């Protein structure tokens, strides 16, 4: 095929979108509707995911040293924890800071109960706050820290806490929420494909005659297929571009109107910048693929004349 012919196919494909005005409109409409629903759930899933991440990131490990551990020992444990690859950050919490934290967590009346425990009377141990890169790994890291005692005859660590039991339950819930979101999005993608394929089948059915005539004057199959292919891509891209625009605009409006209320609840939704790349890339490529798939499948059916 010559370059001139490719240019012709490109031109014909573009022209066909306009020649078949209503049919193009209908196909684009079905793409917009189904991708829109899909997009809404994608945004929902993204935010649920982010929320789950936020909750999970608050999980950290607290390590308490034995009261008898001396400064050198504390330093050594600090270094050893820092060397565990999963660990993001180790913060030393002295017994004084520990007491201050305890005081903060109590209400005014109860605070006075802590009076007299300052300085040498402080019964609390020194310790560390340990942050982990992947919150799902806290149990594993906690176990490793606990294991220091096995190699050290001084048994310098008094205890390792990370909300055992509660954390596991939390992760079960966040994982379930993520998986449900994924299943819904996948289901909607299948539904979108079905809806769009029906519309495209209808538009091609209307053009069965056209294809038959093309064959009659001696057009090769690829000659017939190319403009349909271009048309499919254009309709798919057009539809998904419209969807992306509507979706992102709507989402930015949603963020604007809800940011105050949600802010009070300490919930932070993903910003438009955070989601726009993913949403646009997914929807546009999905739209183009749907267009191509629809036109090739349907044209092939009528080429066997």
């Amino acid at each position, binding site marked *: *095929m*010559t370059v*001139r*012919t490719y240019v*012709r196919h490109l031109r014909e494909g573009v022209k066909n979108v306009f*020649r*078949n005005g209503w049919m193009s409109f209908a196909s684009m409409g079905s793409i917009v509707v189904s991708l829109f629903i899909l997009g809404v759930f994608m945004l929902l899933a993204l935010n649920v995911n982010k929320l789950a991440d936020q909750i999970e990131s608050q999980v950290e490990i607290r390590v308490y040293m034995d009261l008898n551990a001396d400064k050198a020992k504390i330093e050594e444990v600090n270094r050893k924890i820092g060397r565990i690859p999963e660990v993001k950050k180790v913060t030393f919490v002295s017994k004084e800071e520990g007491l201050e934290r305890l005081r903060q967590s109590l209400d005014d009346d109860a605070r006075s109960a802590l009076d007299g425990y300052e300085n040498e009377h402080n019964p609390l141990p020194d310790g560390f706050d340990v942050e982990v890169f992947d919150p799902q790994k806290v149990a594993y890291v906690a176990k490793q820290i606990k294991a220091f005692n096995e190699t050290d005859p001084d048994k310098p660590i008094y205890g390792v806490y990370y909300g055992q039991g509660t954390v596991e339950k939390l992760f079960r819930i966040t994982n379930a929420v993520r998986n449900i979101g994924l299943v819904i999005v996948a289901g909607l993608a299948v539904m979108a494909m079905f809806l769009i394929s029906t519309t495209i089948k209808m538009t091609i059915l209307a053009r069965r*005659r*056209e294809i*038959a*005539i*093309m*064959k*009659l*004057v*001696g*057009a*090769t*199959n690829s*000659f017939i297929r190319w403009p349909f292919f271009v048309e499919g891509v254009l309709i798919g891209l057009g539809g998904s571009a419209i969807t992306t625009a509507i979706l992102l605009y709507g989402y930015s409006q949603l963020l604007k109107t809800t940011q105050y209320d949600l802010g009070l609840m300490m919930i932070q939704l993903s910003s438009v910048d955070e989601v726009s790349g993913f949403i646009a890339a997914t929807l546009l490529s999905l739209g183009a693929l749907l267009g191509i798939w629809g036109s090739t499948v349907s044209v092939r059916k009528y080429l066997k*004349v």
Partner: protein
Amino acid sequence: MIEMHDVAKTYPDGTTALSGINVVIDRNEFVYIVGPSGAGKSTFMKLIYREEVPTKGQLFVNGFNIGKLKQRKIPFIRRNIGVIFQDFRLLPKLSAYENVAFAMEVIEAPKKVIRRRTMEALELVGLKHKASSLPAQLSGGEQQRVAIARAIVNNPAVIVADEPTGNLDPETSWGIMKLLEEINFRGTTIVMATHNKDIVNTLRKRVIAIERGTIVRDEPKGEYGYDS
């Protein structure tokens, strides 16, 4: 030009449309195919432009063994056969010019050549002034003229016309016949299936009559031979 040796066509559902067909149509002939409805005329035409394949026998068009033709070669032999139908079969969204030019775009002819030949073809059928009209804006006779222009634009060796005047009034029909005769005069073989008694009996040509799937009569400058 067209040779059929003991050709038969049986459709998948078991009906035999044609059997024992032996016929030779020479270059530059003008042949009417007549016979009652359902006798096998349309199948006879479809075999020539390879819409159908014979189930038995051998069929040559323009030197090609049509029955043995590979699927991907079909478009290329069709470019040498112009086809005209009762229902015109124009692309409704394309103008008269575009409909005719399409047959040349398919063979990837240079733009200049397409332009020149398309205008020549439209001029021959007398529709140069309606080049930009859509089929819906044209009368039946005019649409058939566009279809004829499309059929001849690639200078085919054969034109297969399946009841080209079937949908037209007598006066318009005569216009179409004049045109076909002119095309035939310029050297194109024409095979035309028809029910039009007046045309066959007035414009005398070779007549092949098909009844119940076989040729029952084949005479030069023949008559229609049926009542209607």
